[in-house]
């Protein structure tokens, strides 16, 4: 029963983390397009940054902690699908750090613009989530 509660906590944390990550990606790459005024752009970035610090980042830590505990309790650490999943989660975490830093830079410098490759961040996040769901549900190897 504890395992199932922990699993529910992990899935909830992952959902909150991924939705927040998409919001950060949107804020970092599209704030200038979404709002025409500098004040509107700044307000949007600051709200996204606050949400990231107060909700998305704790959700990421919870997802890592609960996920690690689940893998230990379930004896999953020797499964190849989990190793691949951890690699993808690591890349998503790195993307989160880069997006979060970029958003912080945009919040303080009006003329700053995000690195061009970050326009693909949303696609990378969706692809990463899809791969994780397939690995966890299908466990192909």
């Amino acid at each position, binding site marked *: 029963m504890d395992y199932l509660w922990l699993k529910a906590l992990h899935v909830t944390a992952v959902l909150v983390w991924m939705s927040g990550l998409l919001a950060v990606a949107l804020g970092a790459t599209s704030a200038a397009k979404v709002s025409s005024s500098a004040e509107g752009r700044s307000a949007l970035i600051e709200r996204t940054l606050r949400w990231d610090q107060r909700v998305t980042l704790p959700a990421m830590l919870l997802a*890592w902690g609960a996920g*690690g505990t689940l893998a230990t309790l379930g004896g999953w650490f020797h499964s190849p699908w989990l190793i691949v999943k951890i690699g993808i989660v*690591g890349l998503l*975490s*790195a993307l*989160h*750090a*880069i*997006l*979060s*830093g*970029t958003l*912080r*830079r945009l919040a*303080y*410098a009006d003329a*700053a613009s995000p690195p061009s490759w970050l326009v693909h961040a949303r696609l990378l996040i969706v692809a990463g989530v899809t791969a994780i769901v397939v690995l966890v549900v299908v466990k192909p190897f």
Partner: protein
Amino acid sequence: MSGEQRAEELSLLRRMRAISLIEGTTLLLLVLVAVPLKHVAGLPMATRIMGPIHGLAFLTYVWMLLQLVSGGGWSRAETARLVIAALIPCGTFINERALARRQALLDIAC
């Protein structure tokens, strides 16, 4: 740089210095205490406890470093030095000194 931005930058540097020291210290504890305890004293529990603690500290350190350099204000050379030092054993102590110098410069500017 505005006062609010400077305060935010200082806070970030303080957190980064703290995690640098934690990462370096947990690595030293793992290598100098836990590993000898496992192989010499026959206590594998030491690495089972210290290993994940250091792993978590390292992941947090790398995450915060990526966030810090993505936030801008660091030259390519500084960024490369921070990232390379993050990946070598005890390199976090080198980074901690670099971060302390940066913090001192910001403190003077306040």
